[in-house]
């Protein structure tokens, strides 16, 4: 529709900054968020538009800053465990896992095998929940409200499974340093299978209504393309990278927990547009369904779930530092933990994939986008603001 090469606009000043003169009347500042249906979580984007074209976007975060990294510095190693999950609401378990694994590594704890199976199970369950929320959001950003209703329903079935396994629906607080809190409840696998079947059936409907949908395709195919070359410079991981054809997945690259024992192929795409990313996530969700079935079939029936811990009230860990990562639904999730021999972490740094995706990458991608595509574009990066500001 634009006749000129839009990539030339807005023009740059000799020093490289954008040449935007707000007083010229050609431009308009437009805030999307922090309260806006087209925003993910507690975040705001400040758009400068020229007509309906975005010429500059800035991400604003900090609406949910709780300073977890700092708070952990005055909590004992066990006391940190209940707060880490709060760093990411829709998929909290990665925080629990990465934190626990980092502590275990520095404390030299060997986690029982059974705990590793249950941890993997929980992480895949969390991934399903996260993707289900994403699908609803991605469709919703383009006006397809019904998808969100369906995925919320099946997500609730998964929350029921979480509740019976962990004792809580959202913040599970189940993976603690040393292992997990308990074994699977009686008859869990059967109820899980029913939930998985319901999820598969719903996903069939989602595929028909969302993915084989002329309107959805029109709005997403070829829109919001991530160039493969950006993957490293913008620190892109997860489905955002895989949809660009970069087969990057910690589960394969640096297998952790029991992933080496599971049989699976990476899900990748090639078009790297919004549609491709949505499709990669839909297929990755189905992969998780398959992985959960594998886990429940292969996991041992009995075994310890916790390593022997020292008295957690005065647990000290020798000086050291490490980085532990996992592949969450949005990409690489990691904890950088520094200990100094005391009973408290010296420093915890949480590396959430949204950090680079929703700031550096998004600000790059939004330039020259149409205002109406901004919401879909942002959702397609699948970002959760709390993990940015921690």
């Amino acid at each position, binding site marked *: 529709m634009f006749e000129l090469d839009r990539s030339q606009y807005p023009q740059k000043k000799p020093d490289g900054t954008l040449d935007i003169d707000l007083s010229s009347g050609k431009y308009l500042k437009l805030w999307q968020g922090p309260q806006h249906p087209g925003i993910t979580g507690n975040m705001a984007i400040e758009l400068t538009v020229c007509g309906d074209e975005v010429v500059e976007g800035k991400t604003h975060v900090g609406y949910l800053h709780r300073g977890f990294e700092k708070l952990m*510095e005055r909590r004992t190693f066990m006391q940190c465990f209940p707060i880490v999950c709060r760093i990411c609401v829709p998929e909290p378990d990665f925080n629990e896992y990465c934190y626990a694994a980092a502590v275990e590594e520095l404390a030299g704890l060997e986690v029982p095998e059974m705990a590793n199976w249950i941890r993997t199970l929980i992480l895949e369950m969390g991934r399903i929940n996260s993707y289900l929320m994403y699908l609803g959001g991605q469709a919703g950003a383009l006006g397809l409200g019904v998808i969100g209703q369906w995925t919320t329903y099946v997500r609730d079935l998964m929350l029921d499974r979480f509740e019976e396994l962990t004792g809580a629906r959202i913040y599970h607080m189940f993976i603690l340093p040393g292992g997990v809190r308990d074994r699977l409840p009686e008859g869990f696998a059967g109820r899980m299978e029913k939930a998985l079947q319901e999820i598969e059936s719903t996903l069939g409907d989602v595929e028909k209504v969302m993915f084989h949908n002329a309107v959805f395709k029109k709005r997403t195919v070829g829109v919001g393309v991530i160039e493969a070359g950006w993957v490293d410079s*913008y620190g892109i991981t997860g489905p955002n990278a895989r949809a660009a054809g970069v087969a990057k997945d910690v589960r394969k690259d640096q297998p952790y927990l029991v992933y080496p024992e599971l049989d699976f192929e990476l899900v990748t795409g090639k078009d790297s547009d919004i549609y491709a990313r949505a499709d990669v996530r839909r297929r990755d969700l189905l992969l998780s369904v398959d992985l959960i079935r594998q886990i429940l079939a292969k996991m041992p029936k009995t075994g310890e779930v916790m390593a022997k811990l020292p008295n957690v009230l005065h647990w000290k860990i020798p000086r*050291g*530092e490490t*980085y532990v990562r996992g592949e969450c639904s949005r990409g690489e999730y990691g904890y950088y933990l520094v200990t100094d021999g005391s009973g408290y972490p010296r420093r915890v740094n949480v590396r959430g994939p949204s950090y*680079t995706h929703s700031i*550096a990458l998004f600000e790059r991608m939004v330039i020259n986008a149409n205002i109406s595509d901004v919401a879909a574009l942002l959702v397609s990066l699948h970002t959760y603001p709390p993990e940015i500001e921690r």
Partner: protein
Amino acid sequence: MVMQALYDTLKQRFPLGELTVQRDNLAFITVEAVRLYPLLRYLRDHEGFSHLVLLTAVDWLEDGQFQLTYLLNNRAKCQDVGLRVMIPRDKPEMESIHDLWPAAATYQRELREMFGIDFPGSPRLEEEFILEGWHGIPPYRRDFDTLAYARETFRDRPGRETRDPAQHMKQQLYGDKGDV
């Protein structure tokens, strides 16, 4: 072994500090601040460490130093290397690497805000990132006391009070009474 080999290779080109091999695919290397930029570029362009995983700081208050940790990942080889740079706390300044990784600008903005570490030349460094209207010392420094801040800023629900078991027993059972 692998990480040691990498260290030895790098050592031929750059003066390096201490090596800490944490796992067979993760090592930390201490480097001088002035060596960092060329080393990062070399690792990115010639050793396959093309992914900047994170950039963060650790406050060693008692040593008067900040530790900057640049964590790089080589996906093909499944290796991570963390570069540790110690900079003085009283002159917290470091060369910007935003031209190596555009994403680094965000990390540097955050470090500037939370730790008060300056990265001259990094884009939008002065803009508020997470905190709005913050005064006082950068809050992620060790000398910022979160508990004191919380006590000044927030109040407890009325009626909160607690007793120490040992003190309470002393008062109830012996104390000045001479005997149990």
